């Protein structure tokens, strides 16, 4: 799958990119329905002439870094799940099994790039430098998202399925309008990545995102984590064909990648982002993976899927294959594995402590930040309510 030669282009110019030829080449490039795999479940590194160049800077240290990333976010995920079971969180949305997809994609992003998550992207959040403690508020139901989105370049979690895809398309249009694609100085270029699930592909907003991004040549990577389930519905309820095919109807490349292979996810994401930064417009990546846990802690998957399925997928575990690869090839010793283990224990401890210490927000938060500018009607409601509460305190009733 040779990345089409990026054509130098006038920043922001509508007609410069991509040529019909590039579009057609891009489509041809993805004709292979098998998911791209660079590291097998058995930990074998598979050579790939077109995608290996995207990993030329990935040595043992980097791979160990990805291993650490995945172990930490998995540990974080399990801790979140446990905290929910203990009643400390209102709900938990597990990422178990999707670590490679999220770390591969997340590590492909540069600090200038923007990411629009859905609600399961704790691994991407980690890569963006979001303090994992800051994600807890959403699930403790004490805030709706609380990190610095502009600094981290990672927007709030979005729950209404598909909405963020259009929002990301708009953001990426802005990057293009700002002249941040197609510059010869590559450091000037930017792209956006948006995350959504297999179920989300049915929503009108995702389609409209495809339309907008393609006709505006927006530098947007559509990163679809096909974890094969939308709550209780398997992907066949959403589509006859593998989802990466969707892109072809709009004239941009769609690629299926083994979503449990962190190297393949990284390489494909880098390639796709490069396409975007060059000004060729959007790319769809379908990361084929598996939701190893329930949809959320309120879900009971035994009602709709057989446990064999899970057993099969355990054999394709995204972390295990990296561990085997590192160990077998003598790239990491026990000391390394132990230190990651220790680090993850420490992270879990921190998360627990933080969770227990999280303050209850005050009633004024209900009224705060609904608007930026003053709003007399709402201010009056707030004042009245706070007075009412104060009345209780005076009476000592509360």
């Amino acid at each position, binding site marked *: 799958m040779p990345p089409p030669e990026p054509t130098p282009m006038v920043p922001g110019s509508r007609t410069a990119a991509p040529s019909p030829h590039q579009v057609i080449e891009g489509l041809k490039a993805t004709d292979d329905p098998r998911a791209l795999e660079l590291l097998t479940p058995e930990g074998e590194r598979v050579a790939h002439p077109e995608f290996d160049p995207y990993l030329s800077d990935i040595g043992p240290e980097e791979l160990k870094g990805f291993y650490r990333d995945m172990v930490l976010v998995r540990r974080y995920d399990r801790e979140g799940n446990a905290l929910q079971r203990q009643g400390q969180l209102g709900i938990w949305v597990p990422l178990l099994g999707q670590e490679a997809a999220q770390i591969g994609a997340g590590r492909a992003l540069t600090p200038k790039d923007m990411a629009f998550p859905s609600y399961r992207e704790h691994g991407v959040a980690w890569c963006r430098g979001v303090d994992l403690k800051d994600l807890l508020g959403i699930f403790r139901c004490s805030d709706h998202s609380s990190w610095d989105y502009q600094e981290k370049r990672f927007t709030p979690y979005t729950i209404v399925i598909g909405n963020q895809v259009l929002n990301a398309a708009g953001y990426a249009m802005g990057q293009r309008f700002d002249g941040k694609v197609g510059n010869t100085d590559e450091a000037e270029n930017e792209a956006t990545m948006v995350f959504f699930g297999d179920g989300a592909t049915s929503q009108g907003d995702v389609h409209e995102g495809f339309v907008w991004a393609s006709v505006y040549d927006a530098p947007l990577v559509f990163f679809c984590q096909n974890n094969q389930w939308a709550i209780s519905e398997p992907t066949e309820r*959403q589509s006859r064909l593998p989802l990466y095919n969707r892109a072809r109807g709009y004239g941009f490349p769609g690629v299926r990648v083994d979503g449990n292979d962190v190297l393949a996810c990284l390489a494909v994401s880098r390639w796709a982002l490069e396409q975007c930064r060059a000004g060729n417009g959007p790319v769809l990546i379908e990361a084929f993976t598996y939701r190893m846990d329930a949809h959320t802690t309120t879900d009971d998957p035994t009602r709709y899927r057989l446990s064999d399925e899970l057993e099969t997928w355990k054999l394709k575990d995204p972390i295990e294959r990296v561990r085997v690869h590192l160990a077998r090839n003598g790239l990491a010793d026990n000391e390394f594995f132990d230190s990651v283990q220790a680090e993850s224990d420490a992270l879990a401890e921190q998360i627990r402590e933080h969770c227990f210490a999280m303050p209850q927000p005050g009633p004024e938060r209900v009224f705060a930040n609904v608007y930026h500018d003053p709003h007399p009607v709402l201010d009056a409601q707030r004042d009245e309510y706070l007075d009412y509460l104060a009345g209780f305190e005076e009476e000592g009733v509360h």
Partner: protein
Amino acid sequence: MAAPVISRAAEQSPSATQKLTIGKALNLGLRTAMENDPKVIVMGEDVGKLGGVFRITDGLQKDFGEHRVLDTPLAESGIIGTAVGLAIRGYRPVCEIQFDGFIFPGFDQIVSQVAKVHFRSEGRLRMPMVIRVPFGGGIGAVEHHSESPESYFAHTAGLRVVSCSNAVDAYWMLQQAIQCEDPVLFFEPKRYYHSGALRAEVDTAVTPAPLFSSQVLRTGNSATLVAYGPSVKVCLDAAAAADEDGTSLEVIDLRTLSPLDLGPVFESVRKTGRLIAVSEAPANSSLTSEIAMRVQQECFYSLEAPVLRVTGFDTPYPPTKLEEHFLPDLDRVLHAVDRALAW
């Protein structure tokens, strides 16, 4: 198709009462409607094997098959839009919207098609469709899972809107809504779906009250409380508490939000002179506004205090650690009663 035991029992005994939660009553109501009319189909996200995230459709796909209980693709405009076509084909679709906050992707089809097909076609096409919406807060959920969007639909001509507050109504109103030839938005108080405290004897053999009627649930003389859905329980609790203090409150369950059946409210206000409308929805331009508007018009000389409201604030639903502040509760209702009485 295996006939379900539960309703076979109902068929056998002329006055069969069962103690049911609201959730189970809805399930039984759906099941009965599906048995009575093969054109009734259920559609929505996860309504099949899973039985819906709240289990309201539990067991229906197993008993009625995949063509009568459809696990649809994940898109609300698609659910409503295809239901419109199925209704034109002669089906009576019952659509489940998974949570209140997710009805908006389907809003256009509801406003532009569901509400207007009958009018547009001069009655030649009917739109007998029910859109079930678990609504309201108090369940400690994340964003978009606790909203009260009913006023949008009450404001939309061509729709009917109802809400049940107890198991008996849940059982009957859902069946009546399915029988209605017009489209009905059916709002269900999700926080009480599985409430043991609200479990009630449901007699499946009686003749129910008409669907589009309000009901006085408790009589009183000092002031009137009007509410619907989950707020009815708040009002009943408040009335019980007030009673201990010697204040006698009348409580009316609106049941039908569009058309409003305000006759019982007018009558009550003529007696008590005071009305408090209670709802979890933000106040601005809402159903409670409309109630106040109509009451001040019809009972102008009877009102001894203005109509007051206890509602959600004009804010998005807050993070649910804060929802106790947002939701009308017994204290806020009684505070409003005090204000009305002191006017």
